[in-house]
């Protein structure tokens, strides 16, 4: 067992893990932050997308030990503590950007990374940038609308 320490959603956490423990297992099973999902477990679907040191990463394809000392943000950090949704989450709600919701945490985390890189992102860019996130329900149309609307709302908020 190896002891890993990292900052998750602004809190210092540590735990003893096997070296082969995936970061997503550490997040879900050790920290019980189950908002981060495991869809395919083969780095295709993006349901496990989180932010590591400020950039999007598929947490099923990173070892917990590799994240030792890292700054991690999961979907649980996105809404305000009082439950007020982040503009991107609100945009998903308003635009019906989800059906079953399984892919949504990864979609929102990827969306925030897209806006970080392309603040005024348009629909074509969103479609291209979402190539690492799969949704089996929506056909993507409303997800794309949600992300464009969420990006606008984030810009309006400054």
């Amino acid at each position, binding site marked *: 067992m*190896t002891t890993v320490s990292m900052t998750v959603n602004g809190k210092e956490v540590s735990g003893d893990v*096997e*070296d*082969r423990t995936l970061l997503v297992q550490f997040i879900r099973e050790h920290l019980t932050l189950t908002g981060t999902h495991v869809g395919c*477990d*083969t*780095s*295709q679907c*993006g349901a496990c*997308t989180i932010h*590591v040191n400020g*950039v*999007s*990463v*598929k947490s099923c*394809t*990173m*070892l917990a*030990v*590799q994240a*030792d000392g890292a700054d991690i943000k999961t979907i649980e950090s996105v809404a305000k503590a009082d439950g007020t949704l982040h503009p991107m989450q609100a945009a998903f709600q308003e635009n019906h950007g989800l059906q079953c919701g399984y892919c949504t945490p990864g979609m929102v985390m*990827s969306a925030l*990374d*897209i806006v970080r*890189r392309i603040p005024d992102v348009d629909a074509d860019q969103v479609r291209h*940038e979402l*190539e*690492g*996130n799969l949704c089996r329900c929506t056909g993507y149309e409303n997800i794309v609308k949600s992300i464009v609307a969420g990006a606008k709302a984030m810009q309006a908020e400054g």
Partner: protein
Amino acid sequence: MYEFKYSKASSVDDAVEKLKASDDGKFIAGGMTLIPTLKQRLASPSDVIDLAGAENLAGISTDGSTVTIGAMTHHADVATSDDVQKAIPALAVLASGIGDPAVRHRGTIGGSIANSDPAADYPAGVLGLNATVVTNEREIAADDFFTDLFETALNEEEIITAVRFPIPDCAGYIKFPNPASGYAIVGVMVAKFGNDVRVAVTGAGASAFRVPEMEAALAANFSADAVADISISADDLNTDIHASAEYRAHLVTVMAKRAVALA
């Protein structure tokens, strides 16, 4: 995954020491291939030695005639680098098309070429641009680097530290991607250096290879028409559920024409 012991290397020398001390150790760079391989139990190293913290392995520099990319530089950083976009835009295009954004935040150029995946993008870039692979032991010309399916000229304890690309007059890269994985079914890098032209193909064979007939034709007439009638033999090309060897041979010509048009 089978069990293994993980350690972080502080430097290239430290990584080599750790590998020597292990029974059957493996280096990990970005892990975008190694971790899925471990998960499928297709590899069972005793030790996994992480190069992510090793000093002086990441970063991009240019001196006017070459662009040098540190082995641990992520694809996203190559894709968005001003230096790369200005000096070798085709290389930025290549990096921006690898995997997806999250994969590009983790995957590295050194890890990609050390793996010599037949469908990876970087081998065509390294070979087509006549890059030099710099290791802790020596410098290896691109022509000598990719030797076979998942095989390179690297020795057991050799670590890529950087890849040095000469800046071409112009270059173009395009792939016909597998729509699900994004891997190249066929990808072609064409680069012009004065009177010399290089054409390198990934995805089609066991490892990246050059097409001398196309290079000669393009040296005489650098236009898409010059390669339109040149087809390569399907013998020894890859066949899988996505594309037959004959289809890949056809795509080499199509992608070469498009790469020239982009250059």
